[in-house]
């Protein structure tokens, strides 16, 4: 499959990443290789085969409706990049 600059830009936007021109070319080459590798699967005839969505056979792994397993706030905020001890703080999302 042909990977275009446009596709790279779109993927970068969706992933909230920024690439300069050099990086774009390098990522493009990498992606083309990866896609070519996976495309080998196209050689297999899958007519009439249901898509395999899950790798295991497990079904109905359910839990009862019980409250358990919560951690406290200090623990929850331990890995926050910014916090005031109550909330996770992030860059302003909307402008008033």
């Amino acid at each position, binding site marked *: 499959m042909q990977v275009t600059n446009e596709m790279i830009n779109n993927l970068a936007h*969706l992933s909230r990443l920024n690439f300069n021109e050099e990086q774009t070319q390098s990522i493009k080459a990498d992606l083309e290789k990866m896609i070519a590798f996976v495309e080998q699967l196209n050689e297999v005839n899958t007519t009439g085969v249901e898509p395999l969505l899950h790798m295991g056979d497990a079904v109905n792994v*359910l839990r009862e409706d019980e*409250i358990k397993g919560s951690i406290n706030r200090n623990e929850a*905020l331990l890995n926050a990049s910014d916090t005031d001890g109550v909330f996770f703080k992030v860059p302003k999302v909307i402008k008033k």
Partner: protein
Amino acid sequence: MSGKYEAVIGLEVHAQLQTLSKLFCGDSTTFGAEPNTHVSAITLGHPGTLPKTNKLAIEYAIKMGIACNCEIELHNYFARKNYFYPDLPKGYQISQHTTPICKNGYITITTSVEEKNILLNRIHLEEDAGKSIHDIYEDATCVDLNRAGTPLIEIVTEPCLQNSDEAYQYLTELRKLVRWIEICDGNMEEGSLRCDANISIRLKGEKKLGTRVEVKNLNSIRNVKKAIDFEIERMINVVESGGTITQQTKSFDTATDTTFAIRDKEEANDYRYFADPDLAPFHLTENFIQQIQSSLPALPQQLIKSLQEKYLLSEYDAKQLCDDKVTVNYFFATASENKNYKAIANWLIGPIKQYLNDEGTSFENIFLQPKILAALIQIIDEGKINFSVAATKLLPVLMKENIEPLVLAESLNLIQVSNVADIDIWVNEVITAMPDKVAEYKKGKKGLIGLFVGEVKKRSKGKADPKLVTTLLEEKLK
């Protein structure tokens, strides 16, 4: 609405399921807790964690599907809907994309014009996001993840509603239903029920749908109605003045009853859905669905029918009683003690509801026992007391104290006088006291009978049997 156009409206409602714990982990779902205290590694989206689906949430979704006449999907799995937002810790929302647990179905509404089935496209399970708070700091947004992972069902209609009145009735009916089957508390202020409205207009007769505007996160049924009315009028004005409607995502401003754009150009959404590899699919059996069906209470539509057919109530009374489950159950409890069904309905819809409203409470907290109400109706039917005295003098006491109505009526000296000799005295007094009015009556102003009856009522302190009074008066004034 201008006669040339018609509106096409579709509604998406998110209903929070009233499970104790979240959809994929054991954090509490209680509203109003201290920020970031109902969280776990799973809620926070830490790597290496393993979510596990809450069985009760699945059951609740199925209940709603059955109550809405849906087909239930037997083979289900969850998908990841990928997008970035700070209150979505994992970077994806777990939802059901290709296999909604409930498909098709409908909810019946009654508008001022007709009875109509509002068609549903789907009901699916998904998790809620956290909450962003924008007004604490100038330069930062605060995130509270207590709500993240709370189970929701999203109920999506076909674009088949035609005006704000239908939307209003649909949401009222939907809210009643989720409360009736006890899967959601229906509290719109706390966000347990949230509505997005997709609105477009087109020329009458046109088959193609017009460009739509989506108004997000409407938090009351009245606001949904107002937002729809505002948008329809705005769109017609745009088209009439030669403009084109642009696709927008909007929000509703409750201060001005208008909508404003939050996203102007709709970016082509690319959520890159795929089956969540951490969650095993869940398969349902017909037997399991059958069990859930048999656990459902009788639904309002069925009860409205049965109240008309078996209890011979009017459609109006039946619908009033079925406003909520507690009221109609109260009716049934009273009806097992007294066969005067019409009177029971009148009491519940009339004075008792009025009393509860005035006290700012509801049938859920009623003190009066059904058997006391049954006894009250019985002494009225036996002619021991009349309705209006019972409603004004006895009811206020009975709503607070557990006492036999007959005993209460006796102690308050309110037992109706039904013997002719006693009533005759009051009737004669009134006739003597009002010679002018009597003369007018005799000349043909028959409406004055009400005045005389009222006067007797006053003199008897409400104890004279009004029917007997009327008969006696009519005889004497011939």
